[in-house]
């Protein structure tokens, strides 16, 4: 059975369709491996018993026309799942059982997939290392005591460690792409408005997007095709014609123009990252595409802008956690005291920090100086991309300024932690799609990723570029199963 978990989604779907494997075989294999992988701490909640029941039911009357026929998968614990606890990695939602299903997960179950469980993440998706989760650190399958990145750290760890064939994460400032890069997998942050936000625990509503994470580009394209849909229940969902991403996937990118932005060559970036980027440029050329030097002059202002916009929106979104309607409640002497104690005991340090920043920048006398200023700079950052896309079809950058770091290495310095997202944040601010693909290893053998940024709604193009590059790179993830006893 161990071979099953090594298969890609595409292979599993094919094997189920050809009846070489049953959904029960596949589901049991991933459950078995998940059970042996407790040390990774990738799951917050498992739903293994129902998963087996669902798989057996599927096998009795298999609908093989579905896109994910009887495929088991775990999802980030930020997606509301009906009747299954959804915590967002927080104590304050430790006992929250949604009465409804997120649209993105609904789309997945409608295509035949089966829920394995809910995956660990940074609390309310606020973090870059999965160290802010109330449910503890997640281990990176690449090496012991290495962070998997965040906030979709449990998701990344589970895919890289083969606990689930695919998963979905969310990305507000890099939370899909950075952990994908740290664990040697593929992660796509779609265009804002492409995947419904309905039923996703909100962090920063103008930035949040759900997206697929997988072992390879083709799997990622297939899952994206399933989750991307117009949804009237999300007021910023956009109605446009969506591609059959996996069917239309091609490695023919001849003649494409790929921009190389000089501002991404940041101070102190390790030589290994620069070398990887140069290699990426060579791969692009080998594929018959052209690279063009471009400038995105406002790049260095993206992180400061993000650290105003995201906490401001978060402070507003998280106002709902008051200990009244759902979630954790602390005892208080009166109503206000109850609110204050509930939020003080229910939220972790990073979430409190961000609520405080957000409250401050929106408070009387500071709104114009911070929030309005940030919205203006956000416009300049978006303009940078609009200008660049007059000349190029996509942009190639490193995904992160370093490889994965050790657990505890950056927890005492919030700013150094925030710098992890330097290459991913501009994409969210501009609402664009970006995909991270594994592209090499550093001297420690840890994976490094490259990011391809596209025009809005041009996921097919960046997936094609990623697909073509993937073939040239021929990346092999170094998973030793160190955590399995």
């Amino acid at each position, binding site marked *: 059975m161990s071979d099953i978990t090594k298969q890609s989604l595409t292979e599993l779907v094919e094997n189920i369709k050809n009846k070489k494997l049953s959904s029960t075989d596949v589901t049991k294999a991933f459950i078995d491996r998940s059970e042996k992988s407790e040390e990774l701490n990738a799951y917050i909640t498992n739903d293994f018993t129902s998963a087996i029941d669902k798989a057996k039911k599927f096998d009795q009357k298999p609908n093989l026309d579905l896109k994910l026929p009887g495929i088991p998968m775990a999802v980030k614990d930020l997606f509301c799942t009906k009747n299954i606890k959804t915590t967002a990695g927080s104590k304050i939602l430790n006992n929250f059982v949604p009465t409804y299903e997120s649209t993105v997960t609904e789309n997945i179950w409608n295509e035949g997939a089966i829920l394995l469980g809910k995956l660990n993440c940074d609390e309310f998706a606020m973090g870059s290392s999965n160290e802010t989760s109330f449910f503890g650190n997640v281990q990176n399958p690449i090496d012991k005591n290495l962070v998997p990145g965040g906030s979709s750290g449990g998701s990344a760890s589970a895919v890289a460690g083969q606990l689930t064939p695919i998963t979905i994460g969310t990305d507000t400032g890099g939370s899909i792409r950075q952990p994908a890069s740290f664990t040697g997998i593929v992660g796509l942050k779609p265009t804002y408005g492409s995947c419904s936000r309905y039923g996703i625990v909100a962090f920063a509503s103008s930035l949040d997007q759900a997206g697929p994470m997988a072992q390879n580009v083709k799997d990622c394209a297939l899952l994206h095709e399933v989750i991307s849909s117009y949804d009237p229940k999300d007021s910023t969902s956009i109605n446009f014609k969506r591609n059959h991403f996996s069917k239309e996937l091609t490695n023919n990118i001849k003649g494409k123009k790929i921009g190389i932005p000089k501002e991404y060559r940041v101070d102190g970036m390790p030589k290994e990252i620069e070398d990887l980027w140069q290699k990426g440029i060579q791969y692009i050329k080998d594929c018959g595409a052209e690279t063009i030097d471009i400038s995105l002059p406002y790049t260095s202002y993206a992180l400061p802008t993000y650290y105003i916009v995201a906490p401001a929106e978060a*402070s507003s979104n998280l106002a709902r956690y008051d200990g009244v309607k759902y979630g954790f409640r602390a005892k208080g002497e009166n109503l206000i005291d109850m609110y204050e104690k509930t939020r003080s005991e229910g939220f972790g340090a990073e979430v409190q920090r961000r609520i405080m920043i957000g409250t401050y920048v929106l408070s009387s006398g500071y709104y114009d100086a911070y929030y309005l200023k940030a919205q203006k*700079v956000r*416009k300049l950052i978006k303009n940078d991309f609009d200008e660049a896309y007059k000349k190029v079809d996509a942009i190639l950058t490193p995904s992160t300024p370093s490889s994965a770091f050790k657990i505890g290495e950056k927890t005492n310095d919030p700013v150094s932690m925030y710098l992890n997202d330097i290459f991913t944040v501009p994409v969210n*601010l501009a609402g664009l799609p970006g995909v991270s693909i594994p592209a090499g290893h550093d001297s420690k053998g840890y994976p490094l990723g490259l990011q391809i940024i596209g025009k809005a709604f041009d996921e097919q193009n960046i997936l094609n570029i990623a697909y073509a590059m993937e073939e040239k790179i021929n990346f092999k993830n170094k998973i030793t199963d160190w955590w399995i006893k």
Partner: protein
Amino acid sequence: MSIDLKTIKHISKLARISVDEQRAEKLAGDLNSIFDFIEKLNELKTDNVEPLTSIAETTLKLRSDEVKSKNIREQIIKNSPQDNEDYFVVPKVIE
């Protein structure tokens, strides 16, 4: 710019998060280092820039005001930390 303990206390009141002295000092330190980093935005002149208020270039759509979820009171109340079957319960607010 420096955020002092008084400001921290004020923000924590606005945010409805109780903060003791020790946490307040830690938060002041953290917030000051974060705002030092944010201040970089002041290098830019933005007087004539339109703020970006929505990334999705779409207008909000209208829909008819219909009840879609019916008879879910019980399910919703079930998630309440303290309930009396019919209502959400909070500490007494009127003497």
